[in-house]
């Protein structure tokens, strides 16, 4: 159990470092200190990323050692991780064989996963009327249809009207909604960040 002085110390570190960086945003004279702190944060974030990878491998290793269910998948994961390390580590991640592995395994797998999403999205949109039938559903499906028809080109069919409608919808109505979302996200980010900078939220374990 952490003691109160230690909690206060953690909060003090977070507040001090955050305040120094924030002041540096508005006062260029403190840019040097801000730059050093940002650089250290970059290093520590990379270390944390590495710790995440180590934790992932350790979890699956334990699964194998403890004969848990689905340990075969963990074995495959460990094998592919090790293979990637052996191929990419010696010559670099952009070496010939590393890129071969990347282009012939990683890209096909991810692209295929995104590709099958097209069918599931269509199927879900077709079933939407059965799930929820209200004005917003009609508006949603209508917008999707208008966007699709606005992109289409069919020989012999004049779809310019759909294109103009789609452009107007995209540049005015969609922008209005997105701008409100952007402002909301920005306000939320500021609120959350300030809560951390004043010590109200302590996600670092305080």
């Amino acid at each position, binding site marked *: 159990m952490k003691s109160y002085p230690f909690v206060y110390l953690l909060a003090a570190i977070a507040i001090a470092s955050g305040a120094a960086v924030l002041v540096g945003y508005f006062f260029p004279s403190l840019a040097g200190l801000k730059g050093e702190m940002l650089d250290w944060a970059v290093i520590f974030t990379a270390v944390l990323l590495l710790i995440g990878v180590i934790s992932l491998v350790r979890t699956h290793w334990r699964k194998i050692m403890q004969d848990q269910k689905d340990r075969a998948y963990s074995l495959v994961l460990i094998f592919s991780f090790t293979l990637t390390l052996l191929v990419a580590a010696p010559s670099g991640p952009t070496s010939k064989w590393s890129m071969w592995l990347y282009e*012939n395994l990683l890209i096909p797998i991810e692209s*295929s996963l995104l590709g099958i999403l097209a069918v599931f999205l269509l199927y879900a949109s077709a079933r939407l009327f059965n799930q929820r039938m209200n004005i917003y559903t009609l508006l949603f499906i209508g917008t999707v249809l208008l966007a699709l028809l606005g992109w289409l080109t069919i020989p012999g069919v004049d779809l310019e009207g759909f294109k103009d409608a789609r452009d107007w919808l995209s540049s005015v109505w969609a922008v209005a909604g997105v701008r409100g979302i952007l402002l909301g996200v920005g306000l939320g980010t500021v609120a959350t960040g300030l809560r951390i900078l004043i010590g109200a939220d302590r996600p670092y374990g305080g």
Partner: protein
Amino acid sequence: MSLFDLGAADLIGGLLGLAVTLVVFSHFIGDNAVFRLVLHIFIGMSAGYIAVVVAYNVLWPKLLRPVLEAEGWELLWVGLPLFFSLLLFARLFPRYSILGSPVLAFVVGVGAAAAVGGAVVGVLFPQVRATINLFDLDAIRQNQENVNLALVNGSIILVGTISSLAYFHFGVRGKAGSKTQRSTWMEWLAQVGQGFIVIAFGMIFAGIYAAALAALIERLSSITRFIYSLVAGF
């Protein structure tokens, strides 16, 4: 390209790509063990690339090489990030994870400040200014636009922006004995905002389908090209 033009590496690579693509497409039928196997291969490879990139791009040039190349008092300064990074590794052990908490606090503080500064300077001020400038008649005339149409569009954008913000406002003051809900005018405004948000999401949904369709086309074209090259080679 014929089969003979394909090197062994390309042939094996093409076969691998074909195999994993077909396995992933088998998910149309249903979830199966081979599909999960391919997923775990993907996760393992991603983790491996992350580790290599981080080591090559951050740990070696910014953490280890400076310590090796530093001399004298400079060693103390460049050794500090290494020392703190080693403390971070204590997070792997629950018993000693507390040692890495100060470093974590530092990272969180810096990240929060960067987020706040970027949101204020990069999003809030510019977007609010952009909404105000929709009604700048000089700018409209300078862009040779129809003033009336520009004003109508600007009004729609203004109403949409405000009502979209209102949709996410859920703060109400509770009154004893009455149902806690937003006031009537706020409720109406939120309904209007919901309409604008639905339109935006409809456009985004169409874009997601377009992206997924492009990925599907790329995969099918790769497969057909490979099969064609195999067939043409024979």
